[in-house]
C-alpha cells in the first residue's frame, strides 16, 4: 500500500511539475500539419546498409489527408517503411499518453522532448519520443521503439522551407536490421561465397536511409484514384 501511495505521489508530482503541456505541444504540431491537405514531392533516396548495396533511386510520393500515401518510381526504389510518411497523424492517430520530458537541442534548434506511449495493445510501437521545435511547431526528430524491429530514428531537416508548411527538405532514417538469411535454393550454387560468409557476423546492424525531397506541390489537389493504384 505504501508503495502504491508513493507511486501515485511521484506520478502526481511529476505530472504537476511539468513546465509544458505535452498535449498542447502535440496538438500544435497536428494543427500545423493539418494545413496541408495534400502534397506531391520528388524524392531521392540513398541507402546506407553495410550488407545492402543499392544505387541511389528516385521516386515520387503522393500524400493526402488523413493518411493516404502512394509511391511511383520509373526504376526500383527502396523506401524506408517507417520514415517516409512523416505525418504526425500517422504517429498520433490512436489513443496515447503524452509526457513532457525535457528541453533539448537538435541541429542547433531548441526543442521540447515529448514522450508518447500508445495505449492500443495492437500497436507495434512501444514508445515514441518526439523532439518538437515549438517556435515553428515542426517535428525535428522522432525516435520509436517497436515490438519487432527494435528502435528507429528519423531526423528532419527543414533547410528549404515550403511556405511555412512543416515539410522537410531531407530526412535521415536510422534503424537496426537483421543481416538477411537468404535461402540458397533459388540462387543455385553459392560455394564461392561460403568462405566470405564465415567471416561475416550475424548480428543486427544499423542502417541509414537518406531521403532528399524536392519540388513540393502542396494543396494542389490530388485525385483519390492515384491512391487506388498499386505502388509502382
Amino acid at each position, binding site marked *: 500500500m505504501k508503495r502504491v501511495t508513493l507511486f501515485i505521489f511521484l506520478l502526481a508530482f511529476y505530472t504537476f511539475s511539468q513546465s509544458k503541456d505535452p498535449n498542447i505541444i502535440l496538438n500544435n504540431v497536428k494543427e500545423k500539419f493539418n494545413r496541408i491537405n495534400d502534397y506531391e514531392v520528388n524524392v531521392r533516396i540513398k541507402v546506407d546498409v553495410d*550488407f*545492402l*548495396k*543499392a*544505387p541511389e*533511386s528516385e*521516386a515520387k510520393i503522393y500524400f493526402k489527408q488523413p493518411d493516404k500515401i502512394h*509511391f*511511383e*518510381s*520509373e*526504376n*526500383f*526504389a*527502396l*523506401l*524506408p*517503411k*517507417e520514415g*517516409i510518411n512523416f505525418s504526425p497523424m500517422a504517429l498520433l492517430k490512436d489513443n496515447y499518453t503524452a509526457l513532457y520530458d525535457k528541453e533539448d537541442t537538435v541541429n542547433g534548434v531548441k526543442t521540447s522532448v515529448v514522450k508518447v506511449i500508445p495505449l492500443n495493445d495492437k500497436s507495434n510501437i512501444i514508445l515514441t519520443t518526439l523532439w518538437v521545435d515549438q517556435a515553428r511547431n515542426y517535428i525535428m526528430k522522432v525516435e520509436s521503439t517497436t515490438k*519487432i*524491429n527494435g528502435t528507429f530514428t528519423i531526423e528532419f531537416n527543414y533547410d528549404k522551407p515550403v511556405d511555412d508548411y512543416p515539410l522537410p527538405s531531407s530526412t535521415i532514417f536510422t*534503424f537496426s*536490421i*537483421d*543481416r*538477411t*538469411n*537468404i*535461402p*540458397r535454393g*533459388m*540462387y*543455385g*550454387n*553459392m*560455394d*564461392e*561465397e*561460403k568462405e*566470405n*560468409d564465415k*567471416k*561475416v557476423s550475424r548480428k543486427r546492424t544499423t*542502417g541509414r*536511409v537518406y531521403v532528399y525531397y524536392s519540388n513540393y506541390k502542396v494543396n494542389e489537389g490530388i485525385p483519390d484514384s492515384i491512391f487506388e493504384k498499386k*505502388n*509502382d
Partner: protein
Amino acid sequence: MTKIIRIELYKIFKKWRTYIGFLAIAVLVPVIQIAMLIEGEKSLNFMTRNLQQSFIFVGNLLNGYLITYLILGSLYIHIPFLIALVAGDLLAGEATSGTYRILITRPISRFNLVTSKFIAGLLYTYSLIFWLALISLGLGILIFGTGELIVLKSSQIIIFAKSDVFWRFLFAFAFASLSMSVVTALAFLFSSLVENAIGPIVSTMAVIIVFIVISAIEINIFQTIKPYLFTTYMSSWRLFFDDSINYPEIVKSCLILAGHVILFFGAAAIIFKRKDILS
C-alpha cells in the same frame, strides 16, 4: 583449314543429336520463365522478407535480368551434358561409323584434322551458349521487361542499376563460353581415347559431377584439393555480379580454364596423331 572446319560443322549439324541441346534449352528456359511468372513474386518476397520489414519496394525486381541470372546459375551443371553429347562424338563417332581410315587418307595433316574438329566443337559450344543467352535474355526481357537486378549472396544483397546490368551479362556469357570450352576439350580428349561416343559423354559428366560433389563437401581434404579442380573456376562468372569486380580473380580463372582447354586439346591431338588406326 576453314574448309575442313566447315565440313566438320556440316557433319555436326547434320546429326539430330546436335539439336537436342538447342531443343532442351528452348523448352527448359521458357518453362523456368513461366514458373517465375506464376510463382516468382512470391519467391522474391520470401527471399527479401527481412528487408521488407524495413523497406517498401517500389518498382519491378522480377524482370528478365533476374530470370537470366537464375538460369545462368544452373549452367555449369546441366549444359555440360548437352555439350558432351556432341563433343564426345567428334572423334569416337568416326570410329563408330568406320570412317576414321578414310578421313585420314585426305591430304591434310592429322593435327590440322584434329584441330578443325576441335574448332568445330567449340563453335557448336559457343552457338549453344549464344542460344541460351538469346532465349533467356531475349525472351526474359520480352516477358518480364528490364529493371534493376537483385543479386542475393549469403552475406550481401546487391541491387544493380538497370543501366549497369547488360554489360555484366555479356561478360558472364563470354566467361560461360570459356567454361564450357573446358567441357568440350575434356569430352574431345575422352573421344580420342575410345571408339564409342557413349564412353566420352558419360566420362565427361562423371568427371564434372565428381568434381562438383568434392567441391561441395566441406571436409578439409576436399577443400584442399578444391583449388586444383577446374570446376571450381567454372562458376567465376558470378564475379561479374559483385559490387566491386575482382578482376585479378577473373583473370586467374580465365587463365586456369584456358590452360585446361589447351592441356586437354593438346593431349587429344597427341593421342590422335599417334593413334594406330586399324578400322
